[in-house]
Each structure stands twice: as C-alpha cells, then as structure tokens.
C-alpha cells in the first residue's frame, strides 16, 4: 500500500507542557519540527495543574536547590535517581525564569519578583522547616504555561498537526527509531512521519483506573507504542492516589472537606476512622485515610449495590458553613454524584492522580534500555519527557509541584539532546519497507472484526480490574488474582469490534486504538505491583507492614531497585537506583516520615 511519507527533522508526540517545551528547543535551533496532538495544544491535561511549579528562587526567603533535592529524594522514598534529581532541582531556576520571559503571568511580590507560596513537603535546610518554593499563576498555572509556550512555538514556526493520533513507533533493523505512524482523524488517512529524532511527551495513563482525576485523554498512548516496539516500562507499580474522589466520576473532593468536619462512614454508617486513627480520626494523613477506606471496601463494608465506595458525610454541618468554607463542593456533588451534600452524604473512593513510572530515560531525556549488561544503553533517535517518561525523579512518590517542573526541565533537556544529536549531522536513516504495515494491520483488524468485544466494555473491564486489584492499598491475594484477570481482559482487547466503519471522523476507531494502549499500561502496572513484595512510597502492601526491621514496610536490602516490565512474555527485570548525584554527596538512606 502507498502510504504518504512526511519528512521532518523531529516529531514530537503530544502537545502538553513537555511536548511544547521540547518543541521550542528544536524549532528555535532551526530544525524542521512537527508536533502531533489528539487535541488542540491548550486543551492538553497540563491545564489541570493548579498547584504551581517548584524552584528554589529564594524570592520570599532563603532557599537552595540542594534542599529541594533533599525533599525530592525523600518524597521518592529513595527510589528516585539522584543524578536526575540534582539535574532537575538545579535547572529549576533557569526554566522558571525562561518561562517568565515567554510571557508567563506569574503571581508577583510587591517589588515585582515571582511570588512563592508554601506547599506540602517543601522544606528548608534538609527537612527542617517549611519554605516558600512554589511559583504559580493564580489557580491557573498549567493553563497559563500552555498558552505561553504555545505562542512561543507559533513564533518559532513549529508545525502543529492537531487532531492526529500517533499509532506506532518505527524502528529499523538496528533498533534506531526513525519516526512514527500516525492517523489524521478528519480523513482517517495513515501517514508516516520519517524523522531523525522522535520525542514522546504523551502524558500519563490514569484512565487505567475506574476512579481517576485524569481527563479522558490520558490513555497512555506513548507507553503503549513504546511497549509494542520492545521498550520496557519502568516502575509502573507506582501511582499517586487522592483519598476522596467522587465515586464513579473521579472528580476531586478537596481534603478541606474533612478539615471542616466531614466524616467518613461505611455501609453501617459507622465512623470507621475511629478504629484506624483513634486520635486524628478523619483528619489522619492522606495515606492513612486512603488505606482505611480501601480496607473497609475490601472487607465488604463499602456502600452501594456493588459495595465499592464509602460516604463522606457533611449533612451535620451548617449549610451556610458549607457554602462559605467549601465553595464548589456542593456544585461538584450535585453535578457528578447526583446528591446534594447538605441533605445526603457524598459517595467517595481513593482516586488515581499521577503516574510516577514510564518510559525509561536518562536525565538528558534520551530513552535508555538494558542491553548486554548495560542498563542505560541509549535507543538512538528516541527521547521522552513529562509524565510518560521515567527519568526517574519521582521514584516511588512525587513531591507536590514537581510535575510541572519535570515537564519543563526534561522537555527542555530532551529537546536539547535531540538538537545536539542532530547537529552531529546524521542524515535520515532509511525507512524499513514495512514501516506502516503493523499499524495498518491493527486498524484493519479493528475495522473488519465481527462478533468481537465492545470498546466500552473492554475499557470498563480494565478499569474495574485495576481499581479492585491494584488500588491505593494492595493485598497479595488480590494482586495475584489481578494478574490472571488482566491477562483475561487483554484477550478482550485483542478482539475489539467497532460498529462504525467509516473512514472520516471515526471516533470509535480512535477509542479502540487508545484501549490497545491502555491495556499495555494496565498489564505493566499489575505485574510490576504483584512482583514488588515490599511497601515503598505510593506502593503499599498489606503483607509488607511497618516493622522495626522494615520501617513503613520498606526493604532496601532487597528492593532498592527499579522495575523494568517487558511486554514480550511479561518479563520483569530490575535495575539499580542511581544513588550518586552529579556533583554533591548522596542523600543517605533513611526512614521517610513527615
């Protein structure tokens, strides 16, 4: 079949924060750069980031990148690579100032400097006392960031391909990445982007869970493509959860609700937090509350027909207090839970928020894989940044406001690395003759199949399986069953059927292709989580409890290592954590407590 070929120096898949940041580097270096996105760039999920971006500018009080580094290593529960963490924390000041020059409307102090606010986990002097490190633009930091960087790209002549979906990575016989296949949704046409550099910035895959704060767009397309092309996925067992998302919708109910007197109840209306945290009760830390909720649900004391949520009760509060102190909560409950919280409790569940793992990269944004005993062999022509990548700076848990920093620093460094490699002067490598065959065969199978599984049902099966078996609190028996079950669900995904066969604007086909990406992420998560027999950061197992020998259930002798999941045979291997920063001494292992 004759498939059109578009030749670019570089293609970037994804136009959220990381994609836009790396595109600036490439286009401003004069390279011919394409950015593919399923949606208009300013509608990327980066828009949902409100908290701010961490940088030790020291505008409000004394701060230092080494203190930021310490907080990040501690947050990661020592699973983060300390070379990448040093790189990121040191670069933070530079990328924030650059963003200011791009026109980002940061909040300012009276004397015109970027205003900095406190944020959970940001401390001065190696964990001593809180420090103001987060830079924000009101409550629309992500939104403002996307706009500033999109404008900069327009000026630099980046070519945007909007409402295009990337399908598969193209690798030649020597393993070099030479581009991607992609589909234009408006026409259904499949095209080859033939490139010298390919950067993935496709964001997270939070939609693998039934309850997720992630927008529908977060289907892990880059992770699916990488896995199908033989690239392992790193540390996929680590997902950050929030305790209270609206059951069935995922929309966040702020922790302020419990602060104002909200009470969690199980199916017999019992205030169950009294059993788990007799003193703090509903105000216990996020982890403790989420684990208690998961235990109640697992032990059959959940509410509703499927006993799969608990209730957040504020009916005893004065309605005037609810309206005044918790603005928006009543509207969210009415819109997404169908209940007025003044009269009825809100159904809530622990809800997936952020993916710590991803495509393995080094701190220069180059994708690395194990080869001949070297865990960090660069895949030529392939780069990744942002939530889809694992540098790894977040390790087992992410420090607040480091997500926007990650996409700025590693978006830029992936772009810089690509520029450096391209300036070394290599021409386009030859495209394999069958470059598009694999993608075309996938599409044809979806188009022609009769009597297969529905995309909607397959997605629900993935999400239910992940939520029940690999949620915020994990149980050995559930993980084991989860592995069997997700491999069953995979068979469903291999057998998808769509009713709409049209070529143009076929959203059913796009959703089927997304589901084929989701299942790769789901398998990687379930299998990696089952295999890691300790608790660390966001991966907490019932059978790895807090003991004097293993505080918080963490076992450094056996498990201070990164997981690598390979799609082929669902094989797991491990690689060492880099405890050696670039220029300073290591942040020594200790128990993580706040």
């Amino acid at each position, binding site marked *: 079949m004759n498939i059109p070929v578009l030749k670019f120096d570089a293609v970037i898949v994804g136009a959220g924060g990381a994609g836009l940041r790396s595109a600036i580097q490439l286009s401003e270096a004069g390279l011919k750069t394409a950015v593919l996105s*399923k*949606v208009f760039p*300013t*509608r*990327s*999920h*980066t*828009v*949902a980031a409100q908290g701010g971006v961490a940088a030790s500018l020291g505008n409000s009080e004394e701060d230092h990148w080494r203190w930021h580094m310490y907080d990040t290593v501690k947050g990661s529960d020592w699973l983060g690579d300390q070379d990448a963490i040093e790189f990121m924390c040191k670069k933070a000041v530079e990328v924030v100032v650059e963003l200011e020059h791009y026109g980002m409307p940061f909040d300012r102090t009276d004397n015109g400097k970027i205003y900095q606010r406190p944020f959970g986990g940001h401390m001065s002097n190696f964990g001593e006392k809180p420090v103001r490190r987060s830079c924000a633009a009101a409550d*629309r930091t992500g*939104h403002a960031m996307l706009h500033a960087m999109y404008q900069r790209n327009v000026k630099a002549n980046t070519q945007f391909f909007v*409402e295009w979906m990337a399908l598969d990575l193209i690798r030649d016989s020597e393993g070099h990445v030479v581009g991607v296949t992609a589909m234009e*949704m*408006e026409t259904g046409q499949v095209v080859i982007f033939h490139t010298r550099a390919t950067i993935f910035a496709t964001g997270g895959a939070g939609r693998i869970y039934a309850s*997720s*704060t*992630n*927008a*529908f*767009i977060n289907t892990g397309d880059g992770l699916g493509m990488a896995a199908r092309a033989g690239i392992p996925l790193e540390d996929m067992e680590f997902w950050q959860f929030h305790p209270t998302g609206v059951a069935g*919708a*995922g*929309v966040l109910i702020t922790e302020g609700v419990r602060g104002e007197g909200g009470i969690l109840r199980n199916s017999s209306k019992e205030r169950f937090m009294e059993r788990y945290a007799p003193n703090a009760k509903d105000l216990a830390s996020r982890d403790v509350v989420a684990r208690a909720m998961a235990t109640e649900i697992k032990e059959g004391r959940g509410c509703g027909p499927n006993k799969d949520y608990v209730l957040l009760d504020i009916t005893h509060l004065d309605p005037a207090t609810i309206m005044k102190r918790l*603005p*928006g909560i009543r*509207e*969210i409950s009415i*819109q*997404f839970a169908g209940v007025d919280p003044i009269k009825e409790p809100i159904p809530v569940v622990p809800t997936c928020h952020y993916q710590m793992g991803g495509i393995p990269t080094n701190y220069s944004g180059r994708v690395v894989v194990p080869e001949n005993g070297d865990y960090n062999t660069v895949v030529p022509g392939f780069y990744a940044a942002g939530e889809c990548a694992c540098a790894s700076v977040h390790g087992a848990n992410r420090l607040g406001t480091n997500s926007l920093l990650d996409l700025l620093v590693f978006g830029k460094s992936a772009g810089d690395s690509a520029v450096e490699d391209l300036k070394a002067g290599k021409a386009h490598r030859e495209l394999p003759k069958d470059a598009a065959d694999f993608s075309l065969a996938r599409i044809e199978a979806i188009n022609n199949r009769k009597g297969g599984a529905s995309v909607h049902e397959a997605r629900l099966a993935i999400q239910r399986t992940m939520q029940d078996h690999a949620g915020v609190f994990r149980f050995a028996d559930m993980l084991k069953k989860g592995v069997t079950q997700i491999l069953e669900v995979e068979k469903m995904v291999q057998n998808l059927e769509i009713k709409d066969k*049209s070529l*143009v*604007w*076929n*959203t059913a086909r*796009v959703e089927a292709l997304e589901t084929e990406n989701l299942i790769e992420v789901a398998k990687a998560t379930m299998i990696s989580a089952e295999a890691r027999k300790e608790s660390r950061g966001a991966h907490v197992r019932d059978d790895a409890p807090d003991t004097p020998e293993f505080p918080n259930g963490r076992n450094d002798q056996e498990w201070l290592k990164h997981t690598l999941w390979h799609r082929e045979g669902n094989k797991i291997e491990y690689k060492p954590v880099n405890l050696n920063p670039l220029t300073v001494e290591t942040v020594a292992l200790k128990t993580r407590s706040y």
Partner: protein
Amino acid sequence: MQREAYERLRWRCIRRGLLEVDLALTRFLDETFDRLSEAEQQAFAELADYEDLELWHLISGQAECEDARLAPIVAMLRKS
C-alpha cells in the same frame, strides 16, 4: 447535524483538558443534545470551543455567561 460535523464535535467534547468538562459535555451529548433545535446545537458547538477553565467556571456556576445566545445552553448544562 451531519454525521461528520457531529463526530468532530463529539471528539471535541469527549477529549478535554479537564475531567470535569469531559464529564459534563459527554453527558450532555448523550442525554440532551439530540433534543435541541439546530440553532441550539450550533450554540452548544460554540460553547464547546471555549477554553476548559472558562467552560468549567460557567458550568459550575462560578461565572455567568454574558452571551445571551449561549446562556440558555449553559443553564441546561448546569441542570443536566
């Protein structure tokens, strides 16, 4: 609305930056859109072009719609 135009609009409703907007627009398309007049459907399509934060502020009642043509659709989105 023609199939092609509808499918394009559908994609622009079911893949947003904010989950809240995904949920509100998807539900509206599934439950309400077919019952609208052609002019109302056009007005909805115009609203769907708004930025995510702007749209969420309208839907959640944190802001009021100043365009008289679109305000009735915003009211329906709030109720749906």
